[in-house]
């Protein structure tokens, strides 16, 4: 490998080139699911429950069926007749496709209408009569395990309570011992409220079942087309080789397009029944109210330290609200995702966490919104705790962090809960962030402003993520190991087609993956066409989420390219009538050692490999190669973030004045794309910290069902971020890259909250839960903070 692709140091095919996919996007020529229209296509619409918890007495669809444009209506009873009323979730629970017995959250799917156009489908929804017997809803997760709590999942025989799981990690005895003797202990309750990734493209599907060929073709908003194919086969009994999933251009996913949703299955069944293609696309409210939410962690964290500021241990107790069905998408072994990376970036002795999952009458989900499988919650917890400790010790939070950060010589580092961090130089990244921010100057300015009665905050967050799931021995979803494949075809003229198992939703795979392969083969990115998102044309793999594309599938692409390069050496040696040992790979060509002007590039070699040349042993013909990558470990990107806010204590309004973000994601293949990912994640973080939450009233009504109430930040709330980079390559990834897709979403919320709490220190505020809306900030100043998961109290 040649030098790393850092901005300004571009080598080979790496570097900040414009994205190949943008040529079609900026012209409005992308093809999204809703752009697909097939001859004879019908349109589906879902009737949803207005109630959070109710028994279904009856569903009468006769008036809807009598509508002249309605072709079919599916109810729970219809699906039950086919054994399809329930489907497995990605966490091995079951979820109702269409409700049969009860509805368990507001917005749950009750019936599916198929009509000749979208308007008629919606009209017919109003003609379906459902009789409900309302039941008391379970809304407050903290009462889920009470004796008298309503039972959410009485569909499961023998289930007596609302517990989904109890899980723990770390060494309880050792941790308790550290806490028992520590000089300083600080604890805090915090809520990471339910939020929603809210991709601008909602979920949708076009399902086309062909009774003659027995084939089912599905175009859908899927981040994991291959996993979906296997799931559909298991659920419907259709043979897997007869199913093709196409995930065309996708308008954002952030994890919410990993699960299979009831609407997808309804469209598939409807296509089988009607023999015609069926399209279903949700509207905005359906998306916000029924598809995978994120977070919803009620946490109690504690940190132990010496009086002079050496952190000794952390422990946490978490109540995880999973909604009505446990449908989180994460490696099966880890019901709380990777939350146990909550030891953060610090050198500490012991840690222990316990997580209890509960059912409530809310939409299912939990792992979404660029969370790196719950690393968001973990980083938030530990970074808030470190700030609380700094306050308790009267120490500067930057100094406290610098003192406790892992040192470069400690890597690879095994943390107290078992993760092995691959590489890092934390003090270097942190020092750079402090420098970019002008930290000391900011503290001086803060003191001056405070003296004038102005409230400015400086918030720091240092995070470590584990991404790129993952080693198949430990990580699978529904038994499918998390390894990914890449197929490389080299055409006679040396142009290359790379087929990958992962699927872009905006991350720029068509560019980054072309650069990866071009870099290995001495080509330009334009010589490489990237094919993705079509199960008939790509190798198996688990898809794009958890920042796994470059760490896993990117590695597979590089290994396939290196196989091509190795084979090309044999062919080149044959054409030059030399031994392969006489050749070396230099500047993108196989060259004769000591005579570098003689040699051959991939294009010439590819033509030779397709020619009448007698091929040497080990080369069957052509240069094509494929690889499957089973990562030996996760990669561990990290970063140091600093957020400067101004708070108006009379109104509670928060302005984010500056955001400094130093990210280390190892080698940067396309630094521009990396920075784009960071920009997006910072906006996510500001949104979550300041304005977003899916809260519920006491009847279980969702209070965030539209963009009027579920607020996405705009350019006016997000300052132009000031970015910095350090590069610490991953030692086990073939090009030293780590994931970057979620870093800023994970790392930024605690920086914003720490900043606001810092600004409010003169009022004695220790903590305030997100979202820090003006009203919530004001209440925190009054000393009466609100619970953000419920209607305002």
């Amino acid at each position, binding site marked *: 490998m040649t030098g790393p692709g850092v901005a300004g140091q571009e080598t080979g095919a790496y570097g900040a080139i414009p994205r190949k996919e943008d040529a079609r996007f900026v012209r409005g020529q992308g093809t999204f699911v809703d752009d697909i229209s097939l001859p004879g296509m019908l349109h589906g619409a879902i009737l949803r429950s207005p109630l959070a918890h109710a028994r279904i007495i009856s569903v009468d669809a006769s008036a809807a069926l009598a509508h002249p444009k309605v072709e079919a209506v599916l109810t729970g009873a219809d699906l039950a007749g086919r054994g399809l009323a329930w489907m497995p979730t990605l966490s091995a629970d079951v979820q109702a496709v269409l409700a049969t017995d009860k509805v368990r959250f507001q917005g749950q799917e009750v019936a599916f209408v198929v009509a000749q156009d979208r308007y008629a489908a919606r009209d017919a929804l109003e003609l379906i009569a459902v009789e409900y017997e309302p039941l008391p809803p379970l809304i407050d997760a903290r009462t889920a395990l009470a004796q008298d709590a309503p039972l959410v999942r009485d569909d499961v025989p023998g289930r007596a309570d609302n517990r989904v799981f109890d899980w723990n990690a770390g060494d309880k005895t050792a941790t308790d011992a550290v806490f028992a003797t520590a000089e300083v202990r600080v604890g805090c309750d915090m809520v990471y409220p339910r939020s929603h990734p809210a991709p601008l493209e909602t979920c949708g599907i076009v399902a086309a079942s062909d009774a003659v060929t027995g084939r089912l073709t599905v175009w859908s908003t899927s981040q994991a087309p291959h996993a979906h194919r296997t799931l559909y086969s298991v659920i419907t009994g259709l043979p897997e080789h007869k199913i093709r999933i196409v995930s065309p251009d996708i308008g954002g996913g952030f994890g919410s397009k990993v699960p299979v949703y009831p609407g997808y299955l309804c469209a598939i069944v409807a296509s089988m029944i009607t023999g015609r293609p069926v399209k279903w696309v949700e509207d905005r409210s359906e998306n916000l109210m029924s598809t995978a939410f994120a977070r919803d962690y009620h946490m109690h964290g504690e940190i132990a330290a010496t009086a002079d500021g050496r952190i000794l241990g952390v422990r946490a107790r978490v109540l995880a609200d999973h909604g009505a069905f446990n449908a989180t998408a994460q490696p099966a072994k880890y019901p709380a995702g990777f939350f146990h990376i909550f030891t953060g970036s610090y050198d500490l002795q012991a840690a222990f966490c316990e997580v209890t999952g509960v059912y409530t009458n809310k939409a299912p989900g939990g792992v979404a919104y660029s969370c790196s499988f719950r690393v968001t919650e973990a980083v938030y917890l530990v970074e808030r705790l470190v700030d609380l400790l700094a306050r308790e010790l009267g120490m500067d939070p930057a100094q406290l962090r610098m003192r406790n950060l892992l040192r470069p010589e400690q890597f690879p580092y095994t943390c107290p809960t078992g993760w092995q961090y691959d590489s890092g130089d934390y003090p270097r990244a942190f020092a750079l962030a402090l420098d970019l921010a002008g930290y000391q100057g900011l503290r001086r300015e803060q003191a001056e402003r405070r003296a004038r009665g102005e409230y400015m905050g400086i918030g720091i967050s240092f995070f470590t993520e584990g991404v790129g799931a993952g080693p198949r021995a430990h990580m699978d979803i529904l038994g499918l190991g998390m390894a990914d494949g890449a197929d490389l075809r080299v055409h006679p003229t040396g142009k290359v087609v790379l087929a990958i198992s992962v699927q872009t939703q905006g991350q720029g795979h068509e560019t980054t993956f072309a650069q990866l392969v071009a870099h290995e083969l001495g080509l330009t990115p334009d010589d490489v066409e990237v094919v993705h998102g079509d199960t008939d044309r790509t190798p198996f793999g688990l898809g794009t989420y958890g920042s796994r594309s470059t760490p896993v599938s990117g590695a597979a692409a590089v290994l396939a390219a290196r196989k091509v390069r190795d084979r090309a050496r044999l062919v080149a040696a044959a054409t030059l009538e030399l031994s392969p040992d006489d050749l070396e790979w230099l500047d993108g060509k196989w060259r004769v050692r000591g005579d570098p002007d003689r040699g051959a590039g991939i294009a010439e070699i590819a033509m030779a490999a397709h020619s009448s040349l007698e091929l040497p042993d080990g080369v069957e013909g052509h240069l094509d190669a494929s690889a499957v990558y089973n990562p030996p470990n996760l990669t561990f990107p990290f970063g140091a973030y600093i957020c400067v806010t101004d708070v108006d204590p009379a109104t509670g309004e928060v302005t984010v004045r500056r955001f400094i973000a130093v990210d280390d994601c190892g080698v940067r293949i396309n630094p521009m794309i990396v920075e784009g990912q960071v920009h997006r994640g910072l906006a996510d973080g500001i949104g979550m910290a300041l304005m977003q939450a899916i809260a519920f009233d006491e009847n279980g009504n969702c209070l965030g069902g539209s963009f009027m109430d579920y607020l996405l930040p705009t350019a006016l709330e997000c300052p132009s971020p000031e970015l910095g980079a350090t590069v610490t390559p991953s030692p086990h990834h073939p090009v030293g890259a780590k994931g970057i897709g979620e870093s800023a979403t994970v790392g930024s919320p605690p920086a914003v909250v720490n900043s606001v709490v810092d600004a409010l220190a003169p009022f004695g505020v220790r903590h305030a839960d997100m979202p820090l809306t*003006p009203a919530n900030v004001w*209440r925190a100043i009054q000393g009466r903070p609100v619970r953000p998961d419920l209607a305002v109290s």
Partner: protein
Amino acid sequence: MYPSRFRYEAPHTVAEAIRLLAAGGDNAKVLAGGQSLVPLMKLRFAAPELVVDINNLPGLSYHRADPDGTLRIGALCRHADLERSALLAGTQPTMAAAAPLIADPIVRNRGTLVGSLCHADPQGDWASVVLSLGGSVVAEGPDGRRSIPMTDFVTGPFQNLLAPDEIAVEAVIPAAQGERRGGYLKLERRVGDFATVGVAVSLETAGEVVRRAGIALTGVGASTIAASAAAAALTGHSLTAESIAAAASAAAEAARPRTDHRGSAEYKRHMVATFVERILTRCSAEPAERAA
């Protein structure tokens, strides 16, 4: 969007529009900027059988001042026209402050002030502004025109005094007696948000003395609230710390906020007082606008 089925007409004269509305009765709706009606139809909260689009009616895009200073805003004058208006910038501080705070640029390009008054959303910003200025709405129906004071125009949340066959053709702001001062402050959770709380203050002053005061509140009641006692606390006085504090607390008392996901009733009441105080403090410090 998937609204219920509706018939659409786009007449070219006011008379024709009124005829269509009369024939349509309660099931007909006027469409102006469409920025409130269309979202309601999209969600099927409104399902009119007939939509009468008034955007083709000629000569309603104006906003202009009569020689005596009376301001007239035609039914098709957009929020964006008012935001960019040189006329308002010099003469109508409350309106000039409110215009850029309404929604976002896309909505402002289409939405109308008159449509906003007709919509009578308790969170609509223009109703407070017009109320604070003592304005009125001119309605035209089969029997001609009538003027309805803003104090009477809104009859409840999303309800106005128009008959089904009437169109609001313009809003009128009377000329100031003296110099105008004032402002509009709005608490948004994010730019483009509807008001958690909005406060309109419009003063007409002679020297240091307030001759007429109007204070109106957005988002803190079932409809826009005229805080008359707060206004009365200022009339005949100059702006002092005492009169400002008295107005602020009277306005907070007039508010009827409800606790919801935007904030508690207590917070909203506090915000009313804070905004009244901020606007008045600024008014007392700044030179008055030229009298309209």
